[in-house]
């Protein structure tokens, strides 16, 4: 092990450096120059995102505690890109007076969670995994409670934090069982020694629930709606995409590596929870009036679809999960971007407020429509391809009826996505949201998200690329 091998951790190291730079700029500038702070944060992160895509070698460190593979690196890059879009979209909100002097705080917290997620993804050991998870969670609670004098925000923060603590407690209990059963917590050791007994099954279930909590799988999902609603729009957006995607990725890799021997246990678990998640998520989503809450349930339902890919247990399924996650990130960011833009401008976040939006803000509406259609899975927008491949993967592994339930659920989901479309295009409104111009960053954020959801589907090579990377996991 030499200094060079530290470069395997390039993503994390750079992010840590970014946090430090942010901190330094805050200390030096005192946060007085709002404009500079924002530009600095965004531009720096753009650089980070771009650097992330530079070629990098893969391998393990710390005796296997830290590992990277092309798929992991891709995932990190997707997270970076997603976070970058969030950064773009958050600028207009941070500019507001209420956030004076706290701009860098936001960026520092958010990059911290990203570091946590990166470590979590790269973990080769449950300790590393746990640390990453907590690093991703605790600043998130702080972010959720970011709006200090807002009850909802504080409520969201405490709900997230306490429930996350409970969930990690339970997960830790499971990890301790695993430790008791198999001597080591290194994944490589666990893969070797894993066998089915009551301790490992218990460990599987508890670790699964801990991650399911992060992905918001029914019945571990209840925090989602309240936290999403209470947290600031950008935090919600970030949570719904980056946090969820990373957890889903980790869950997938854990199941396929550490718990590969317990496949016959986790397959039915995924089956049941997936059905429950899709169905309940959809049923709850139908009656939501608040866009954030609505997106919370929508994202719950989407999580159920992710399981279709995981459950298939094939390379095809896994690569499609990553593919789907990428699409999901862009789609959600498109929707949240528009919702955020509107919220920042008018403070409105009810779906009814969107009535007549098309007449006044056609461009925003179009982006929102793309995002919603992508989530609903309507071609030629990327979401369709993601879902279609998930179904194909699941059916290829013989999950016919699960797929049937899933497609029926897409119809319910289509219904509530169309409700927003209806509000924007059809419902007449005496006083619609007036026309407004978004700032440059917001525009870029929306454009990038839109390009993402359009391009990922049309360019078949992307899926092919992901497929070839995924060898790292199996």
């Amino acid at each position: 092990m030499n200094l060079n091998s530290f470069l395997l951790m390039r993503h994390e190291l750079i992010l840590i450096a970014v946090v430090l730079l942010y901190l330094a700029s805050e200390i030096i500038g005192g946060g007085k120059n709002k404009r500079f702070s924002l530009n600095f944060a965004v531009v720096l992160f753009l650089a980070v995102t771009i650097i992330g895509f530079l070629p990098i070698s893969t391998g393990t460190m710390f005796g296997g505690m830290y590992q990277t593979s092309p798929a992991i690196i891709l995932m990190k890059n997707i997270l970076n890109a997603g976070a970058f879009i969030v950064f773009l979209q958050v600028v207009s909100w941070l500019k507001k007076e209420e956030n004076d002097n706290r701009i860098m705080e936001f960026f520092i917290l958010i990059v911290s969670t990203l570091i946590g997620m990166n470590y979590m993804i790269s973990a080769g050991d449950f300790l590393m995994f746990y640390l990453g998870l907590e690093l991703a969670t605790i600043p998130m609670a702080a972010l959720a409670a970011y709006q200090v004098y807002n009850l909802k925000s504080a409520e969201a923060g405490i709900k997230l934090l306490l429930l996350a603590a409970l969930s990690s407690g339970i997960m830790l209990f499971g990890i301790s069982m695993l430790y008791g059963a198999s001597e080591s917590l290194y994944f490589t050791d666990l893969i070797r020694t894993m066998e089915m007994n009551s301790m490992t099954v218990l460990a599987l279930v508890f670790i699964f629930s801990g991650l399911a909590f992060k992905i918001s799988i029914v019945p571990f999902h209840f925090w989602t709606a309240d936290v999403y609603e209470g947290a600031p729009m950008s935090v919600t957006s970030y949570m719904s995409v980056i946090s969820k995607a990373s957890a889903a990725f980790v869950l997938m890799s854990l199941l396929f590596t550490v718990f590969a021997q317990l496949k016959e246990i986790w397959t039915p678990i995924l089956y049941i929870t997936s059905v429950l998640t899709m169905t309940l998520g959809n049923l709850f989503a139908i009656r939501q009036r608040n866009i954030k809450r609505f997106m919370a349930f929508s994202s719950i339902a989407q999580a159920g679809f992710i399981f279709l890919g995981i459950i298939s247990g094939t390379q095809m399924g896994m690569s499609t999960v990553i593919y789907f996650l990428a699409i999901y990130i862009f789609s959600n960011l498109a929707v949240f971007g528009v919702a955020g833009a509107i919220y920042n401008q008018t403070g409105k976040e009810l779906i009814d407020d969107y009535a007549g939006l098309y007449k006044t803000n056609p461009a925003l509406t179009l982006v929102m429509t793309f995002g919603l259609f992508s989530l609903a899975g309507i071609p030629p927008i990327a979401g369709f391809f993601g879902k279609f491949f998930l179904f194909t993967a699941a059916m290829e592994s013989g999950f016919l009826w699960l797929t049937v339930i899933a497609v029926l659920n897409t119809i319910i989901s289509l219904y509530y996505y169309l409700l927003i479309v209806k509000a924007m295009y059809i419902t007449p409104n005496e006083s619609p949201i007036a026309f407004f111009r978004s700032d440059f960053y917001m525009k870029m954020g929306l454009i990038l998200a839109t390009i993402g959801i359009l391009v990922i589907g049309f360019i078949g090579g992307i899926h092919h690329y992901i497929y070839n990377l995924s060898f790292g996991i199996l």
Partner: protein
Amino acid sequence: MDILSLLIVVPVLTILAIAFTKNYKQVRVIAAIGTGIQLFQSFNLVWQYLQERAAGNTAIMVFTKSYIWFEKFNIKYDIGVDGISVALIALTGIIVTAGVYASWGVKEQAKEFFIWLLLLATGVFGFFIAIDLFTMFVFYEIAVIPMYLLIGVWGSGKKEYSAMKLTLMLMGASAILLVAIIGLYIYSNPQGGPLTWNILELANVTMPIEMQRIFFPMAFVGFGALGALFPFHTWSPDGHASAPTAVSMLHAGVLMKLGGYGALRIAVGLMPEAAQEQAWFFMILTAFGAVYGAFGAIMQTDLKYINAYSSVSHLAMILFAILMFNATAMNGAVLQMISHGFITALFFSLIGMIYGRTHTRDIYKMGGLMKVMPILAGTYMVASFASLGLPGFSAFVAEMTIFVGAFQHPDLFHRVATILVASSIVVTAVYILRAAGILLMGPIKNDEFKSLGDALWYEKVTLIVLIGSITVMGMAPLWLSDMIMKSLTPMLQGFVTL
């Protein structure tokens, strides 16, 4: 760029061009130009196709092109046409053109209207040229989803409810269909090896019968719902009633044919064994639907409802004929798709024009329109005659072919079903003449109507195009029928009986 892909590219370019227009006048001119080119392309395709066949090309699909799309799933942008799709492409070209002229008067959000309309058309064209199930399905959904906004924004009546119902039912059906399509893919290579979405390759594969039993009904119902298969037709009356004119035209004229085409080519064509096994059940549904739709139409007072139920009845014949598994009946099915496409588009355009003048669609509020608007009323009369299957018009050719084909089954069950379906043409006469009688004849009920004008030039374009198509097909059906027949023969080779 090959001749088939241009069929998608041109409407897409038209959409882009429309996106940069300034006002509704530019929009409609560009739309007219775009669809004009498209119409020319469609006819050119028919011509090229006939040339190709005349030159001795006996491949099942001609003008095939294949580009890899998603390599790992073996998804390709596979395109190609045979006689059936060529015929339906020509139909689409004509209806879209007529539809654009029928919406000449759209001024409110004209840009968006034409964009969605052309997007719908793009989906339809793409569907007909695709021979890769995935690509086909993508285009299928592209064709369906614009309906929501087209009805929701530009519709009338309880448009939001109708649009939502239509979209959900159709997308629900397509969701079921999606499962069937994936099923076809997964069982496309029983011996192991690469799987395929390609229809031609799938046709050579026999899926295990127990899987066919699951996937055939899914595919048939999935497509059937779009083809107004009883009892999945209820989106149609509300949807048509609320939709704006051109949308009704395109939807009933073209989009609903996607259902029949898919049921023929995919459900029955690729899973023939299960199809034959389960045909009896769907035959009961379709035969019942044919009569039921006709009876349902008798007591309606809203013109669009009458026509919607009439469509239910006529489209049931298509699905019925498809289940007969012989070339004659299936030929009739395709002819009926085309014929019904023209006729129903004509009807809906007329209803739209009449509604635009009288502002009511209730037949009892109108009467004696023959006196005030002889061209429109006369055309309505012609459309009525065409719809009730009079010789000289396309529907006669189609229906007779269906009946003759269906009658080739000597057993009592088929006989009774066929006669039941045939009897629907009498009921059709009842409701068509009832509507025409009340609407066009008798004394003028409302004095305000006396000052109404007759058809304008762009309306005449719509009417002439459609009537021309109906009569040409009705009077000289041979070339069309033979073209379709030749393409059906290879498809039927996989069938066990007849």
